[in-house]
């Protein structure tokens, strides 16, 4: 009787532990799952990527809009005092900006996802099926997918640095706060650059498709 009880309890324990672990692994895999990337239904898409001239957009990581920050000079005592004095107000504005950026990111992300998965990729697949492959369109697809990944990555980095900035005590450490603010500005500039590139690539898709239409 004692042995039966022991066995029952140990079986129950093992089952329970297994259930707990089975909850952990799906969570782990979901958290680590990379965002869904472009679909390539046709293997021949990869065969048409050998034309270096067709890559007309070269996304770079050197944002040119950092020049707008002419006020990125060392922190003067007056500014330091202003930061300390208006710390709460500044933080509230940053929190509001954080929420707004999140909303804009979701909106833009949906559009980019649609453009890539419902327009760019299907057109390339259909062109290949009709024996009309267009290298420039395929390269545009790859550039768009890469730019979208960069946008996701850069946005996460930007939000991380913004979160860190908001958590900094600007009343006590205004200089440190301002230094972090400069880093956040740079991160935001990268995100802005990614958006500019993506919008340009979307316009390029229209241009390239129009030229194919004219040639038919």
């Amino acid at each position, binding site marked *: 009787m004692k042995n039966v*009880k022991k066995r029952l309890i140990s079986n129950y*324990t093992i089952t*329970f*532990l297994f259930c*707990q*672990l089975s*909850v*952990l692994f799906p*969570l*782990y895999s979901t*958290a680590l799952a990379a965002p869904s990337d472009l679909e390539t239904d046709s293997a021949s898409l990869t065969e048409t990527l050998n034309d270096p001239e067709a890559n007309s957009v070269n996304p770079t990581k050197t944002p040119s*809009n950092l020049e*707008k920050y002419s*006020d990125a000079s060392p922190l003067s005592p007056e500014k330091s005092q*202003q930061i300390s004095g208006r710390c709460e*107000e*500044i933080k509230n*504005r*940053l*929190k509001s*900006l*954080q*929420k707004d950026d*999140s*909303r*804009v*990111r*979701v*909106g*833009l992300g*949906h*559009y980019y996802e*649609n*453009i890539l998965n*419902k*327009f760019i990729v*299907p*057109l390339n*697949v*259909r062109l290949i*099926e*009709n024996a009309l492959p267009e290298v420039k369109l395929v390269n545009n697809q790859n550039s768009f997918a890469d730019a979208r990944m960069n946008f996701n990555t850069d*946005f*996460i980095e*930007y939000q*991380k640095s913004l*979160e860190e900035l908001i958590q900094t005590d600007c009343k006590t450490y205004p200089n440190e706060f*301002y230094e972090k*603010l400069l880093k*956040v500005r740079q991160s*935001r500039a990268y995100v*802005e650059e990614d*958006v500019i590139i993506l*919008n340009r690539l*979307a316009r390029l898709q*229209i241009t390239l*498709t*129009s030229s194919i*239409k004219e040639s*038919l």
Partner: protein
Amino acid sequence: MTRGGKNLLILGLSSVLIAITTTGISLMIYHNSGDIYLDRSRPGFLPDEDESEENNQTDYEFSKSGPINREVLEGYLDALEAEVEALEVYEEPFSAEALSDKRLGID
């Protein structure tokens, strides 16, 4: 305490410990992967009520199979043009202005 009671206590404590450990690991992964910064279900980041009106995205989807001719591409271009124009409603997203000294009140 009986042996059964002891075992039950051990079972209870170990299950709580496992739950805390797995939750901690999950949260750590959630933070480190950056998903927390993309998550709009956390407090303070929930979408506003009027936000659903902004996301009027197309249901149009270009089929991956079928003929390619002028008419088909015209329909494609019209839909794509509408989508790209909807993108441009976001005026200067992530512009430098929002984090300028003037906007933050450090001027």
